[in-house]
């Protein structure tokens, strides 16, 4: 069994309530931080831990905190990103539902480190039940003296508020989230300035994912160095993985970073293999925005070594043969799934969710959706495949926020690895409507050198 830092007590009855949470050692991190550490020392522990942002980008949390501007007399804010809308990702919802005090405790510790006196948890609007759960947890924490004025007699004061979103994936992007929190449309801001300088209401602001904030609790309890001992290389600590698709046991798992992908998929401790005894065809390892990989490149690197669940190993080989850990939304496709259909589905998602500010994204995502739709429904031409690659390239890097890239990557990677399946849809417009292309060679062991060369 691997170490659990966030979900260790998840199955304890009543852990969603303050009393049981405290019996299991909850709020020790608040006591320790507020009573024995200065805010800068808390930042230092988080730096030492090597924790990287769990929202998708993987930026070191301690470093991000140290960029926060601290002008005299200007309030600073911590905003928790609980917008969780990246397809394939449902870990934050899980954590907030079952162990809400882990987030509340993390918010107090983190707000203290940053010198925030009012902090907001921006929760996607559809999570009304979770919003209720968090509000209840906040009320409990306040009654116990962990929130409000003069917390635990230390003189530190903090208020926590829960803010619902309105149903828009783009509000997960941190500057769109801040716009939304100010009561506006979720249009991402042009950067710079970064939120660390001018964020919420123009004040210095840190935006962090739910899981990143919750992870500060074990970091403060055990020390940053202890946390950094878990994991592998620059991928320290544990990570929540949301596993979905055709798996025997989908769900949320806490893994130690560095776990072999094969073990994650097939062992009974985790996903228990592919559902219904089928074979694995492909995976999207880190939420819909990251490149899709065929089964063989999911399990092994291009040089034949096992691929691991870590930031580095998943991105090994760049976009030619690798992908990204992203938000940890792990989606498995079995041999009966159609890659063209899924790619079309994802492009519809991005088109629907584009805020419309930049033309490459607004128009490009529409083109991707339209062309993929005709390929999927048997009206495509061979030239459509290159057209898709071309449109995807023209979106990439030419937009205000990374949603454009997130829309382009799944398309580019699907064609890179599954081009024969796209071509089959053109060559067999009738058959492809009732049959599936199947597993083909996607699970075949990799011809090492040939594959690496071809990819370059």
């Amino acid at each position, binding site marked *: 069994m691997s170490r659990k830092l966030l979900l260790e007590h998840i199955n304890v009855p009543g852990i969603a309530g303050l009393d049981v949470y405290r019996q299991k050692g909850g709020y020790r991190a608040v006591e320790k931080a507020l009573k024995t550490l200065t805010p800068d020392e808390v930042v230092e522990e988080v730096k030492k831990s090597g924790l990287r942002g769990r929202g998708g980008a993987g930026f070191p949390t301690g470093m991000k905190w140290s960029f926060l501007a601290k002008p005299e007399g200007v309030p600073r804010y911590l905003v928790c990103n609980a917008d969780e*809308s990246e397809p394939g*990702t*449902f870990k934050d919802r899980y954590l907030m539902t079952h162990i809400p005090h882990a987030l509340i405790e993390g918010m107090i510790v983190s707000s203290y480190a940053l010198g925030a006196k009012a902090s907001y948890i921006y929760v996607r609007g559809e999570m009304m039940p979770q919003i209720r759960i968090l509000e209840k947890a906040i009320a409990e924490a306040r009654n116990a003296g962990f929130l409000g004025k003069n917390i635990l007699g230390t003189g530190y004061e903090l208020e926590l508020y829960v803010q619902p979103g309105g149903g828009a*994936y783009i509000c997960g992007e941190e500057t769109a989230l801040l716009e939304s929190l100010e009561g*506006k449309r979720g249009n991402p801001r042009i950067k710079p300035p970064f939120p660390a300088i001018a964020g919420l209401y123009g004040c210095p602001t840190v935006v962090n994912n739910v899981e990143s904030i919750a992870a500060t609790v074990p970091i403060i309890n055990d020390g940053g160095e202890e946390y950094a001992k878990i994991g592998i290389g620059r991928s320290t600590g544990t990570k929540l993985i949301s596993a979905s*698709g*055709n798996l025997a046991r989908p769900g949320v798992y806490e893994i130690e970073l560095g776990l072999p992908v094969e073990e994650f998929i097939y062992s009974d401790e985790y996903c228990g293999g592919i559902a219904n005894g089928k074979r694995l065809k492909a995976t999207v390892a880190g939420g819909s925005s990251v490149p899709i990989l065929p089964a063989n490149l999911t399990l092994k690197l291009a040089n034949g070594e096992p691929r691991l669940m870590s930031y580095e190993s998943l991105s090994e080989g760049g976009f030619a043969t690798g992908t990204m850990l992203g938000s940890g939304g792990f989606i498995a496709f079995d041999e009966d799934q159609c890659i063209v259909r899924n790619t079309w589905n994802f492009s519809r998602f991005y088109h629907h969710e584009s805020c419309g500010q930049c033309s490459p994204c607004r128009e490009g995502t529409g083109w991707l959706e339209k062309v993929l739709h005709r390929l999927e429904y048997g009206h495509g031409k061979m030239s459509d495949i290159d057209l898709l690659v071309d449109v995807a390239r023209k979106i990439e890097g030419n937009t205000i926020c990374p949603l454009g890239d997130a829309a382009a990557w799944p398309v580019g990677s699907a064609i890179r690895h599954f081009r024969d399946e796209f071509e089959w849809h053109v060559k067999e417009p009738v058959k492809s409507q009732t049959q599936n292309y199947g597993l083909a060679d996607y699970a075949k062991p990799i011809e090492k050198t040939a594959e690496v060369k071809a990819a370059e």
Partner: protein
Amino acid sequence: MLKVEEHSPVEFSADLIGRFDEIIARYPGGKQKSALLPILHLVQAELGWLSTTAMDKVAAYLQIRPIEVYEVASFYTMYFLKPQGKFMLEVCRTGPCCLVGAEKILDHLETRLGVKEGEVTPDGLFSFRGVECLAACGYGPVLQIGPEYTFYENLTTESVDQLIEDLKKKS
């Protein structure tokens, strides 16, 4: 384009206004516009949708221009700018849920309810639509019903039929 139906007068109860004020108090002075999204949720939960009259009243209460409310209400997918069925069944239609049968659930709802996506059944009880990922991908297919946003997971055509019957009884 913003489309709003004909509207009738709207009164906010004292209780509702009290809840507006509670929300406004969460933000620094002068930043009451931050309360817009939460307040629109409250108003929609009360009225079922957001009419122009309702939005104008919200604008007046928050001391912002009506257009600032319209542009927000039309940007976010959770706000309804026309009346819906009493129960709006929102089924996730994104990739991971489709791997486990979400499209079948949507097709089934269309047949079963006898209306197309976005329409209201003649008895005024039901509407349905496909929505994007609801952050419950491991438990798909899933649907939610506002304004409480109750979740129904691991759906089958049978469990959907059962749900519709239960909702009919409840209404």
